[in-house]
């Protein structure tokens, strides 16, 4: 079984987000960029399907391909996936903000060329928080989807996936080929070892362009303004539980 894992390069999740004073966007200059955490979980799951582990038999996946759409530096993100254990990479070189719809269209092109049996993506990227790409891709391909996965069991021509939904957990069966998107608790990604990081440098990365798939990446939405969130003024410190209850009464919430 061939597994394809799209990965996104985003601002490192440990870094503070700074909005540019002129409202034109978020300042990313000279800041550390990393693989989107949900994408990293997707890579880990695919690699476990190949190596065995996490409930998967070794060899369930025969090849894991990491794909990224972005600037030259997105190669680093692909190398990160290769260091976790993906076999090869595809970079679709594109500058600027590429919206989920365009990403899904490019991925559809990649998938038609590579013909994977399973595509695992992060449920959302921690920069635009859109939570769209996997679902859009599934619709464009006419494939079933299992989003927000916390457990995946492969069984022949189908996957049984437990999903984190409002109020609890839902388990569904999807016929392969299918799209799965990862939630946080699906697995805990490994730290790539130094030998694997070195090995990853030798793995092949194919470079393509959106035009190779006939996709126009012009954004559909216009960002008019980017602002800091409204600051919530800190309140007062109370000394005792009694004083707290008094304040809550005054505020009319109890």
């Amino acid at each position, binding site marked *: 079984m061939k597994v394809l894992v799209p990965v996104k390069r985003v601002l490192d999740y440990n870094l503070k987000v700074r909005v540019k004073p002129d409202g034109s966007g978020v300042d990313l200059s000279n800041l550390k960029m990393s693989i989107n955490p949900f994408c990293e979980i997707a890579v880990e799951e695919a690699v476990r399907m190949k190596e065995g582990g996490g409930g998967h038999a070794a060899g369930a996946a025969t090849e894991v391909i990491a794909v990224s759409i972005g600037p030259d530096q997105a190669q680093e993100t692909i190398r990160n996936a290769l260091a976790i254990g993906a076999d090869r990479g595809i970079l679709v070189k594109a500058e600027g903000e590429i919206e989920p719809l365009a990403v899904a269209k490019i991925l559809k092109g990649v998938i038609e060329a590579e013909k994977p049996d399973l595509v695992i993506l992060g449920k959302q990227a921690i920069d635009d928080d859109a939570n769209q790409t996997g679902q859009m891709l599934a*619709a464009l391909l006419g494939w079933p989807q299992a989003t927000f996965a916390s457990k995946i069991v492969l069984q022949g021509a189908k996957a049984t996936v437990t999903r984190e939904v409002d109020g609890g957990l839902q388990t569904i069966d999807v016929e392969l080929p299918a799209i799965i998107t990862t939630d946080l608790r699906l697995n805990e990604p490994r730290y790539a070892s130094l030998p694997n990081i070195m090995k990853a440098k030798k793995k092949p990365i194919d470079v393509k362009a959106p035009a190779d798939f006939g996709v126009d990446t012009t954004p559909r939405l216009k960002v008019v303004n980017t602002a800091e969130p409204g600051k919530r003024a800190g309140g007062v410190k109370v000394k005792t539980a*009694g004083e707290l209850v008094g304040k809550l009464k005054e505020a009319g919430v109890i």
Partner: protein
Amino acid sequence: MAVLVVAEHDNASVKDATSKVVSAAKAMGGDVDVLVAGSNAGAAAAAAAKIEGVRKVLHADGATLAKQMAEALEALIVPLMANYDAVLFAASTTGKNAAPRVAAKLDVMQVSGVIGVEGADTFVRPIYAGNAIVTVKDEQPKKVLTVQPTAFKAAGEGASAAIETVAAPSGPFKAAFVSEEMAKSDRPELASAKRVVSGGRALGSSEEFNRVLEPLADKLGAAVGASRAAVDAGYAPNDYQVGQTGKVVAPELYVAVGISGAIQHLAGMKDSKVIVAINKDEEAPIFQIADYGLVADYKTAVPELMDELTKAGV
């Protein structure tokens, strides 16, 4: 302009979120219809027809819609969009699951997690876990939005809109429901509760989490939430998680017990009307946004709070 709102419901009743998304739709101007897609969902359709400002309710009923799975909702909604300029879903797991499929089929870029509507084509949404807020203009001929219900007031009740039946998609679909495990609780639902009591990693164990928070939640008639740290440590189940990657809540009263206040948690609760923080670390970031901060060990502070609430007649 005509806007379709996809109802959040459990077949028997519509959730509060539906009425809030109707408010967002009304802010766009034009006619607002509500789609109730379910199985034996007549009661939910009747409830939706009562929401103030709804022109009519479309009711699609069938086995394929029993679990409101994304493939079936896509098949149902895409053809309906011939009659609408926009479709709005709640940013629930059901809405987030289905909306992008509809958008892709309409060849439209979706606007996710809308927290403000500034006219028919201008929307406000958070990015970077709420650390930045963008205003976007959507001039596409059809619009697909998911709406953060907590950002909008519920529309009133008392209308009696007509209910029109539409055919459910026939299927079969390549995804099939197997089972579900829903948390059972007599407490209000976290996402829509008026009061929330939330615990963090400081609670130290799942026994302690329940021992400390449940009586307080019962006393206040509150839902119980948790920080991601508490959930990851296994003190609380996944669906308790409040934050960027969990639930976004905006109750009248939010009581954070032993929560330090990581940005990702604050993103999920900072729109609460009154925030109370109880933490023994005076430097905890939660105090920067709390209306009332009590620097104290929860072990003594929570029992004292319970006593004082009793004294105050709560």
